[in-house]
């Protein structure tokens, strides 16, 4: 593998700076954002590189769990912030975070123990990247589906209540919107699987090939990851939409839009 030096990265950074200068000439407001984002990438990735270095050197279950929890809590916050109409109070945080915990953690631990079977099973070299990819993707699925669900409940309240008035149960009254929400959460990963290798080479596989892994080995890992991500996203989306749609109704099955903000 070709080791990258600071100079190599500086040359790549020069390209970004050039772009920033060009857009400044065009009086585009994007140049500032571009530079800020580029700096954030460099700083954040360097920091996480250092964290992983320390973590790999101290591969204890406690440290790996702590790291995993920090990742989960940050992803949970991200899910909450991406929803225009989220649940009020701690529910807004708990639905997404809880669903990600159920899906991403379960799938990651399952893959680590049953499929990869490294000694120890929580070896951070496998556990952290795997969980990271799972969280990143379930986060998208859950936030899209929850946004869709709460939006539909808000916009279609008359339809949902009309169905309640005719004696339908809450789950029948919201069934159409629940189905649409689950579908829209699953679409990105289905598209990614369908297009993998044709339209684009998946990033993880590309990274492994660049690092010198044989293409067929890299492909096997990519397939594994895709399947894990779709399982994780599917479970997470189902859990979030199921919990979320129940939370939209109270114990007398009344539509409670005052629980949204």
């Amino acid at each position: 593998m070709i080791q990258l030096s600071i100079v190599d990265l500086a040359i790549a950074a020069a390209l970004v700076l050039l772009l920033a200068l060009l857009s400044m000439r065009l009086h585009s407001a994007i140049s500032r954002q571009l530079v800020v984002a580029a700096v954030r990438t460099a700083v954040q990735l360097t920091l996480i590189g250092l964290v992983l270095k320390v973590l790999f050197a101290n591969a204890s279950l406690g440290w790996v769990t702590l790291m995993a929890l920090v990742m989960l809590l940050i992803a949970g916050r991200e899910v909450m912030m991406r929803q225009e109409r989220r649940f009020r109070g701690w529910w807004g945080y708990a639905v997404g975070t809880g669903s990600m915990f159920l899906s991403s953690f379960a799938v990651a631990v399952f893959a680590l123990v049953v499929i990869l079977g490294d000694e120890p099973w929580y070896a951070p070299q496998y556990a952290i990247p795997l969980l990271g990819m799972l969280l990143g993707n379930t986060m998208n699925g859950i936030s899209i589906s929850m946004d869709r669900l709460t939006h539909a409940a808000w916009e279609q309240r008359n339809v949902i209540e009309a169905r309640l008035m005719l004696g339908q149960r809450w789950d029948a009254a919201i069934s159409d919107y629940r189905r649409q929400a689950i579908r829209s959460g699953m679409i990105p990963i289905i598209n990614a699987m369908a297009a993998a290798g044709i339209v684009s080479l998946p990033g993880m596989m590309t990274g492994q090939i660049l690092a010198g892994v044989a293409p067929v080995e890299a492909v096997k890992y990519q397939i594994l990851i895709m399947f894990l991500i779709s399982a994780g996203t599917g479970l997470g989306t189902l859990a979030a939409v199921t919990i979320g749609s129940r939370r939209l109704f109270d114990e007398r099955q009344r539509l409670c839009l005052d629980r949204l903000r």
Partner: protein
Amino acid sequence: MSTPPPLLEIKELQRLMIGPVSLDIVAGECLSIAGPSGTGKSLLLRAIADLDPHTGEVWLEGVPAAAMAPEEWRSRVGLLPPESSWWLPLVRDHFYDGVPVPLEHIGLSESILDQPVARLSSGEKQRLALMRLLSNRPRVLLLDEPTANLDPDNTRRIEAVIAEYCREQQAAVIWVSHDRQQAARVAERCFEVTGGVLQARKPEALQ
């Protein structure tokens, strides 16, 4: 002659600016509530159908709402909102058990059942929404401006269909209308909302 036991008992019902309301309605009786908009008439109907949190109780045939599953309560105490909502493409899709009344009686033809909902006028939707509610055979009808989008002829037809349902099924009706003459015409007992309180009115006083 002994008085029949009430079909619907409303006990100290309160929701936001309206109430507390206490009322008994016997089977086969129609009761109207008139009053300007924004006085909480619709809120009262929603509370009776248990669609909003409220204080107080409503009993149907001696059983409180809280003792019944919500979906069972709402299919027996049916609310017709002023604006109807539809969720399937064709009109017919919303009528699992057929139409309760020949559609000619409400000024429509049977062919309307095969039309897409999107092509209906608001008056057609309002009449069909009443049909959809009646096909559930509710014991109590809570009607919120059921003829607001209708011309005088169709208004009379709908009034006749509701009166007949009420008599045949021995149902109870609470009819909310901003039209005081209609309120006096359709009901045996008339009320008006003033300052959040239901006040009984003589039908002649509303004309």
